[in-house]
């Protein structure tokens, strides 16, 4: 029998494959994007558009500047909320679902490194989050710009009708409205939301490598996010109550070390309120974001590299 087999014409060996391939990472990333898009996740943008348009039509007696400020706060606040929530939920669905469906078997039986798989999944989520943020920013900008134009026109008509104010005063009044309107610096607020979403996505991917289900991943990630936000507030609040309580102090320090500090990623609020943007600080936040992603990807690899299926 062996002679018979030996006589058979055999196939040529496979081509050599790269030890690490960005193209394989990108293949998994684009597949993830397709998956999330075809899950109709972008429909949440419709809900966001409704929120922003509603905010633009609140009829509370107020000055134009204050109304524009409110529209911005609601829009960018909702944008921030959608971004981090979407990052958690979409990331939490990926690996557990691949495990449950056993799609992971067929992927990892191909020449794909586990780090490529993790990186591909994370990149896919970040692409979707980034595109969503850009779409939301476009919607916000449209609403703010249209309201700003309307307010400026109304205000100018009112002032001119009154007749008592000079050109300088008119200009000052219009500038007050424009100060709360559409400004290019608001792009940094969008960037801040993206940084926050990127960090929580990398934390979620880490949790999903050892979690038993998507639900557990989502709940744990949300808890981590809330605790990560509460560092400073908790330190202020509880330390005032329990100044000499060593246990509470140690617990707070432990949380601070183990859990990411999400509060500092909320600097979008200051930008939305009209504060000047310090480019160097934004750069530092970007570097910190990259640091978080690298570390949590490494942790994900630690738990995932010899996980058995």
């Amino acid at each position, binding site marked *: *029998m*062996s002679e*018979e*087999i*030996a006589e*058979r*014409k*055999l*196939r*040529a*060996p*496979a*081509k*050599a*494959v*790269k*030890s690490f*391939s960005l*193209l*394989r990472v990108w*293949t*998994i990333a684009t*597949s993830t994007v*397709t*998956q999330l898009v*075809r*899950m109709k996740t972008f429909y949440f943008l419709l809900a966001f558009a409704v929120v922003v348009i509603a905010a633009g039509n609140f009829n509370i007696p107020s000055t134009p500047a204050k109304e524009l400020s409110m529209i911005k706060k609601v829009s960018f606040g909702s944008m921030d909320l959608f971004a981090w929530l979407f990052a958690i939920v979409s990331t939490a669905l990926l690996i557990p679902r691949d495990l449950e*469906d*056993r*799609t992971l*078997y*067929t*992927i*990892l*039986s*191909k*020449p*794909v*490194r586990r780090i490529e798989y993790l990186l591909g999944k994370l990149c896919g989520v970040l692409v979707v989050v980034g595109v969503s943020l850009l779409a939301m920013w476009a919607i916000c900008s449209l609403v703010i710009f249209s309201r700003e134009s309307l307010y400026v026109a109304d205000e100018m008509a009112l002032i001119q009708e009154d007749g008592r104010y000079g050109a300088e005063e008119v200009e000052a009044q219009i500038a007050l409205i424009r100060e709360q309107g559409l400004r290019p610096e608001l792009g940094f607020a969008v960037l801040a939301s993206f940084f926050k979403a990127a960090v929580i996505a990398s934390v979620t991917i880490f949790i999903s490598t050892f979690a038993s289900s998507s639900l557990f991943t989502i709940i744990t990630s949300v808890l981590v996010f809330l605790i990560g936000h509460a560092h400073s507030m908790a330190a202020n609040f509880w330390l005032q109550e329990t100044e000499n309580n060593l246990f509470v102090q140690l617990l707070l320090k432990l949380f601070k070390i183990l859990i990411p500090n999400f509060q500092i990623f909320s600097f979008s609020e200051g930008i939305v309120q009209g504060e000047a943007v310090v480019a160097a600080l934004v750069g530092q936040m970007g570097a910190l974001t990259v640091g978080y992603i690298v570390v949590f990807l490494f942790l994900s690899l630690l738990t995932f590299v*010899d996980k*058995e*299926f």
Partner: protein
Amino acid sequence: MSVPAVEVKNLTKVFRTGFSKDYVVAVDNLSFEVEAGEVYGLIGPNGSGKSTTMKVVLGLMAASKGEAKVFGLESGAIQARNEIGFLPENPYFYKHLSGVETLRFYGKLCGLRGSELKDRTVELLQMVGLEEAAKRRLAGYSKGMLQRIGLAQTLIQNPRLVILDEPTAGVDPVGSRQIRDLILKLRDDGYTVFLCSHLLEQVQEVCDRVGIIFKGRMRREGTLNDLISIEDQTSLTLEGASPELLGKIHELVASEKGTTIIDEGNSRTTLERLFINIAEQKTEDTDQ
């Protein structure tokens, strides 16, 4: 002598149950080889260690002891996985992808690009008969269609070794026959096929060699002839034999010391062959 396609040496796999000290030995000191170019069947009942062995060969699991190699390479190595095409028992693929997108996805993971990937995709879709359903999402595929797209992705990068896990489980007799024909064709095309199954009758028709595994250990191994032929019995099937001829044969046997006729009667086809004949006949009638 070519390098064996699969080489398993003293493989042991132990699973610990939870935090307790209890453990399960799924595979116990298993050794076997699959020669390049042959069809090898690893057969055994459910829970015998077939899937565990296969997963170690695929690199999805690490051995507790021993080793597994694919064409001389460590089974977990990335180059080894490029030599393997794997068809799982119930092929689960991304349901949001269409047939052609699935093949393109797996092809890209194996390093195929551009026109090479496109041509290969078209070729495989034709081979498995899914050209018309190529653009439909896998969520709308039947089980048989999923099996066929699974087979196509198995061959996407032209691997030397094809691993099939229960390839005919849950498939109707016609589909089952097609898969077996395909396995034989793969063999003729130079692929090495390593399959795991508990459907013994179906394995019988395609394998060059078979290993029987039970409770994690290899119990018997060899060619089918060696394993299942009853050495001191001979079968003879006659067509159009007259009663006189049969009488003469009876006398001849009776005159020979130590030889008896154990069984006699009309040959029987199998239910499966009958089913296939009826199905093929119905298909022909419909075509006419």
